[in-house]
């Protein structure tokens, strides 16, 4: 049941469903990232629930965040957004000034509520900023290998391509790794993620080659650098990204090509995964089965349909992996080009 912002305005009495709002926001705007959708959902929540004290608001936020995280199969991206929102609220309240403890709590509330659109716009602008920082990486005659459907990478590559014909024309090639497992059921043609970017780049005159994931090691010799996007950037500077990124990182390291990550700084998330299987996500990529298990499971599937307590499982085509920081040459973010170890500092700055 989708609760759009219009319907919430009319039916105030109906309880606010943050999960549905979040999903709806993500669906309605393909350019929206998960952290921003989460922030937006929280803003809508605050508009909906009149709370006048600070602790009431924080409590409400904590509860809704926990609920949201539990109901979404991959909460890494969104927890970056909810954390950022919560920390912003707390830090602003502690700081002296108009919005501080001496000031009016209502002022900060109105600021947050009235500027929902602004946050989205800024988030999109940050991609522009990244593109400006990252422009220097793409030089004449180089070949970039990339994967996935990251919007930040797409905007970076398109920005570089846009300048073709201009005073600083960059002629570069792109090798696009297309995932074989991602079957976009809702998509018009069931084409793999990233085809849209491939078409856009080709339309701009950038030669693009698409390869399957199995050809990465073969193709990497022809590439000068790897640029990937990320769903979340974790505390040690590693990234959580589309399945297949980790192996590209390992291969790039082995072949000695720089591996750059493009991510907005609102994707930094306070998480310290120790390895691939340490992510707070329920995904069954490696699953051992016998003939007997398969028969058993199909029988079980009919009897038990929904179990509310069971954590939501991430479908295989959305599965992610973790790329540790030692494989990453640099992170191109809207606050500059950072080394992986700079991420923890950015996070520490907002948490402590």
């Amino acid at each position: 049941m989708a609760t759009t912002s219009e319907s919430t305005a009319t039916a105030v009495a109906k309880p606010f469903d943050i999960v549905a709002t979040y999903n709806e926001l993500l669906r309605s705007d393909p350019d929206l990232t998960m952290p921003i959708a989460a922030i937006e959902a929280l803003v809508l929540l605050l508009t909906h629930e009149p709370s006048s004290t600070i602790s009431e608001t924080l409590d409400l936020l904590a509860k809704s965040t926990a609920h949201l995280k539990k109901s979404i199969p991959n909460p890494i991206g969104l927890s970056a957004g909810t954390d950022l929102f919560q920390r912003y609220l707390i830090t602003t309240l502690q700081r002296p000034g108009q919005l501080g403890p001496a000031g009016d709590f209502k002022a900060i509330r109105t600021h947050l509520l009235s500027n929902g659109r602004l946050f989205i716009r800024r988030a999109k602008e940050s991609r522009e900023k990244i593109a400006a920082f990252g422009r220097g990486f793409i030089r004449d005659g180089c070949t970039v290998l990339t994967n996935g459907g990251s919007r930040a990478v797409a905007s970076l590559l398109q920005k570089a391509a846009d300048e073709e014909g201009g005073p600083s024309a960059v002629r570069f090639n792109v090798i696009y790794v297309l995932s074989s497992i991602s079957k976009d059921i809702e998509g018009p043609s069931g084409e793999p993620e990233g085809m849209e970017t491939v078409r856009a780049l080709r339309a701009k005159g950038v030669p693009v080659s698409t390869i399957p994931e199995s050809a990465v090691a073969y193709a990497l010799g022809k590439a000068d650098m790897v640029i990937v996007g990320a769903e979340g950037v974790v505390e040690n500077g590693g990234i959580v990204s589309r399945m297949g990124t980790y192996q590209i990182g390992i291969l790039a390291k082995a072949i000695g090509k720089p591996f750059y990550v493009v991510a907005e700084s609102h994707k930094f998330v306070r998480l310290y995964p120790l390895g691939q299987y340490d992510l707070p996500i329920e995904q069954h990529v490696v699953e051992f089965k016998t003939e007997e298990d398969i028969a058993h499971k199909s029988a079980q599937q009919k009897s038990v349909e929904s179990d509310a307590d069971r954590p939501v499982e991430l479908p295989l085509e959305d599965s992610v992996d973790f790329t540790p920081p030692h494989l990453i040459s640099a992170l191109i973010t809207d606050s500059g080009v950072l080394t992986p170890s700079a991420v923890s500092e950015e996070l520490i700055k907002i948490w402590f």
Partner: protein
Amino acid sequence: MPSTALALTPGLASFLKSLKTNPIDTSIENLVSLLKRRQIRHSRSCATATAYLLLRVVSACRTSESAKLIERVQSVGRRLMAAQPREMVVGNIVRRVLGLIRDEAEDDREAEFALSEAGSESQPQTPRAFDDSSLPLDRDMLSLRGEGAERSTSRPPLTSMFSLLSHPEPEHSLPSTPGTQSPNGRLFSPGQSKDVRAEVLEGINEIIDELGQVDDQIAAYALDHIHSNEIILTHTSSTTVQKFLLKAAAKRKFTVIIAESFPNNHEATHATISGTSLGDDENLTFDSFQKPLIAHGITVILIPDSAVFALMSRVNKVILGTHSVLANGGLVASAGTRVIARAAKVHQTPVVVVSGVYKLSPVYPFDFDSLIEYGDASKVLPYEDGDLVDKIDVQNPIYDYVPAELIDLYITNLGGHAPSYLYRIVSDHYRKEDISF
């Protein structure tokens, strides 16, 4: 300008001498051409010349507004950097001066703001009210000293991550008033602006002092890193490295292997070892009264840098000087350094780089090739062999780019840092808005 400049060979010494008498514009021209002709080389000489020139520029700039001052310094800085883009220290010094001006301007604005606020609030004259307004400010001043890029009580968002959610106004408002309306809207009264310039001049003098002391400060860490009976390998004749080794030599006995770098640096290396100084402008800035290492009873072995790999298995530690250090932890140093660093990696020998903070550049090396300067090819193959020169292509690269993963430790005048930590020092020393100006 010519009369004074003619008396000396053009270089740092003549430039500094002429700076006092020449008009500003001539001095700028002078430095630009010196940089272009490579008559001022070496990171420190370039940094010193730049700092002194900016000192003159700022003191001669009779403006009351910090924005104008920034503009003036920027325009001078751009010309200097365009003259010799590979001398990154020039840009570093310009950026630090710009940062100084911005800091002073903001401190001033803050102080004014705090004053006006304290004035209005402390009317009941209770100490309580005073505390309220001054304490947070003090705390912020501290954090401002410590964290460079972060600013001011009056601007609501501190960190870059918060900038997403912050108030709309203060984003691009460096020259304008801070977000909260300060009661007296104008930026500076004339009396205060004069103060800003004095503060900036003082700051530049501090930078100049830093340039003078940096080697001694770095050398103070020597005993932590060089132990008795160790075999240390170094490359070329970096003064910073020499002082570092000399400091340790005063207390401990060890062996130094010096790899000479033919053809650009071998003469200087020989001179350093034997203690006879070459007659270039280095004499002015570095005290050449120092005894060479051998006088301290240190065993010194001189090898060509082609023999580095063979000897590396016996070496305990590699200590390198550098031309400039880049924001990603990599460095640009004299040709041959990368071979040494790579050989050290293969033998798992620790590589320590000694470098003043002034060499640390906020520039990210997008294109490594563009950082490398090519020098006089006749040093490799003299022009007497003319017919051979016709047939082959002779190149003499002066610098090498060494990637961060080959370096284990940087020792700056602030202490020892891992290469991955350098970004932090960069953000402490340079303002984000000055990185590309």
